[in-house]
């Protein structure tokens, strides 16, 4: 496929993304969307939050604008800023303002990473006012009726600094995500990568082993995404033990002893 350049608000998800529901999250999201309620997705990394958003965007046929938050992300990065062009200052909308105008889904990934001042612009959008204050323009932007706000948050980081404030979290409908149950995860790995069921099952078993290590040297166990990566490598002819090392072990830790132990675990399985 050729690379295409698209304006963010024109980014429609065209083909149906592969998504396996683990509960009633699809129904809840749709109901929240109909009632103009913002949504909070909780869960560890790589368990399908972003995929779920893509799937929902496809289902409700709205463009999806994703912003990955980082610790230097400020309110003006979301709302917009003046730029100087040819001697004049020009206002340029940020991704949040674009979605509010165009009625897109704005998905703020890992919201706790962003600076604290970004919360201030989210709050009026996340309750029944549904407005975006644009301080620098001195205007209030009323949200398009199709606009939807979704944020994600990983409660696994046990840092006080990275906790979501009550005043923020109590505005959202929360959907909890976790790694899928073993059977479902096997199905997902097999479907996404094209490896056989037996191999997918072993990979899932390996993931459970790494999840057993959470708290004794690992911050997080292997996510479903990493399993899919490993499975894809195996499907392209890489040895399973090497695939587990490159796609999973090296991705979750740098600790030499932990890597050695994970190598032993994977070689015990395959």
């Amino acid at each position, binding site marked *: 496929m050729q690379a295409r350049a698209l304006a963010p608000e024109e980014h429609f998800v065209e083909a149906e993304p592969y998504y396996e529901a683990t509960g009633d999250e699809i129904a809840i999201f749709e109901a929240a969307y109909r009632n103009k309620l913002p949504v909070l997705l909780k869960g560890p990394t790589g368990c399908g939050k972003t995929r779920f958003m893509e799937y929902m965007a496809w289902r409700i046929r709205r463009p999806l604008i994703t912003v990955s938050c980082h610790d230097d992300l*400020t309110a*003006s990065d979301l709302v917009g*800023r*003046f730029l*100087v062009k040819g*001697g004049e*200052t020009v206002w340029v909308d940020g991704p949040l303002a674009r979605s509010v105008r165009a009625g897109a889904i704005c998905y703020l990934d890992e919201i706790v990473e962003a600076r604290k001042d970004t919360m201030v612009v989210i709050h009026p959008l996340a309750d029944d006012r549904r407005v975006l204050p644009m301080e620098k323009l001195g205007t209030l932007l009323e949200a398009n009726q199709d606009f939807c706000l979704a944020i994600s948050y990983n409660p696994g980081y046990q*840092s006080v600094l990275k906790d979501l404030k009550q005043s923020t979290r109590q505005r959202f409908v929360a959907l909890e995500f976790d790694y899928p*149950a*073993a*059977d479902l995860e096997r199905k997902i790995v097999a479907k996404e990568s094209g490896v056989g069921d037996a191999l997918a099952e072993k990979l899932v*078993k390996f993931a*459970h*082993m*790494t999840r*057993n*290590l959470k708290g*004794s*040297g690992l911050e997080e166990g292997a996510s479903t995404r990493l399993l899919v990566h490993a499975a894809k490598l195996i499907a392209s002819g890489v040895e399973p*033990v090497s695939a587990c090392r490159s796609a999973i072990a090296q991705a979750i830790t740098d600790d030499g*002893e*932990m890597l*050695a*132990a*994970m190598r*032993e*675990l*994977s*070689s*015990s*399985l*395959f």
Partner: protein
Amino acid sequence: MADNGFQLSAEHIEQALEQWLEVEFTFLHVAELAASIAVLPRPDQDFLLGWVQRIATTNIQIANQFAHHAITGLAQLDHHVIGAWALHAMDTYDRAGLRPAIKAIKDLDNFVQLAHERVAGVLFEEVGGILLTFICGLSGRRLKLKEGETVHTDSETLFLPAVVARMQRADDNFALAKAMAAFLWAQTRFGTFRADLPAALAAYPEPERALRHFHALETLRLDACIGRELPGLFREMTRLRAELGEIQSLPKAWQRYSQELAVADATVFDSLRLLEDAYRGEAPSPVCYQGELRPDAVALVMSARKEREKILLRVKLAQLAQELRKQKPESPAGPPRFETRRAPEDQAGLERLELTLDDMPIAPPEEVRQLLTSIQLDLGEIPPEYLTPADPGEYDPGLYEAKHADPDDVWQGTYHEEGATFYPEWDFGRQHYRKNWCVMREKDVPPVYDEFVSDTLRKHSGLVKHLRRTFEALRDENRLLKREPSGDEVDIDALVEALADARDGSEMSDRLFMRTQRSERNIAVMFMVDMSGSTKGWINDAERESLILLCEALETLGDRYAIYGFSGITRKRCELYRIKRIDEAYDDEVKARISGIRPQEYTRMGFAVRHLTHLLNEVEARTKLLITLSDGKPDDYHDGYRGKYGIEDTRKALQEAQRGGIHPFCVTIDQEARDYLPHLYGAVNYTVVDEVRKLPLKITEIYRRLTLN
């Protein structure tokens, strides 16, 4: 090599040995020994004599015995293994005294079972960490891993030998150690101990023989389990057996047992049933990784655990029920009813139970989940009486909560090591750590509510004001950076200028924005205060005054800090006195504790540095400082800590701290400190305050300079 010109001569060796083994006093005969070392090639000579010298600093008898035995050992083992054996003997000496250590030296053959030539063994010390993580990753109960004389488990701890050296190559030996650990894990995971083994085996005329046969049957069953669960590992185990020539065809009867035990739902009871028949014939020879079965040790640990876990589970369930019912006021009346259901899917092979409360599935906390797993492993299920929440007051909390013996008892005649933490100590003569050498305890300084703090503040009132001003200037601040290429705001001044420039025809600058930059002081400091007896009098006063001023300054600054005093007498009584923990507020109690600092015993330093490093490592901060306030060299009563030993141990401990990203610094009033502090802290990381009275004035200034960014 024998005619190598560089070989050491017998006379030369004899002289060295006479000196190290103190022949003048010990009357050991070294001539023969020296002659037999003289014929060895030079690298072996150097290796052997190096170790003799190192061991002699610990004990001369052990060194002598080592020298005699190592000469034969050198023919069979590589240097790596011999070194481990020497350390093992010295550890034994530290732990149990001379006789067991001499025995350990003489037991070389036991130490490395069945040595080939120049074996490359793996040491427990080196692979223990990896294997423990490996075992943690497998499903089931959280197991511990320890070094032991033989390969066995008591169902909570897996014991592996100090060295595994049956195979020729190091990686094969590692594979063997892994196989041993996994096999012991399989015993706990697949229910070998679910039956009452001591009783079952005692029913046979020869219980020993019964145990041997039972072990062989269980090995067949567990091999099949591992083969299903961890096929990769099982392949490797089979390969190891093949290399050791252990794969023989089983006798006819045993082939039948093997088939019966290989089915997926075979249990330990099947093995016991087959034992009746198998007992009559001969058991196949044991395989390399099976180790020993110790039903008695297991029974002891297991009965204690069953009782404890039953109580714990019932107490935890009662707490859980209370919490859950508080959240849902509409829950049914009557006692909470817990049940377990088989979960619809299998996870990681271990049957997963779903816990329900009043028919509603609940997600139990990790602690409860682990208890359930452990009970399920012991009993195969969760008996209903385990699921009845405990009535309040039904159990004495002493039964399930860890007991704390009073740390002060050690000073009143009843020595104990309960509640203590053990730290290693560096022995420079041995060039190795003494394991678990220091018995460390944390104690609180008894607060003394008196006038000391207010007096100090009054005495230095001018200084305190000055301190507040200078330290406030160091605080976090947001700075507005102008003329930046990117930023949140347009810099109007820059823009006007740039537009004028553009009109002028010259190049327009792109630095048109303003940006606020937060400069964060993210510092955690640990103050380690000398509370040894030598600080008695005005040094102690100066220390306490300094701490008060420091606290005032640090409170202004907002840096996180902790204060601990250290002292002790001999390795058995190393004490750290809590004055202020890192998360504790600077309140009246902390002030009273500072006031209550009194000189104690000696200046053993290594353990204090190690423990405070450990505490500091748990704090999240960009910069971590460990500042020592001291009045002299490391020193202790009796066990040779004085002099070079203490200095080298402290240096090692400080190096460990530095490796963890901690910056050590020392402020001392010892005028001779320049002789040893550069060696300990490095050339610049210390300050000598020449007048005790100036310490309070100096210390805050030193701290300010140290943390200026």
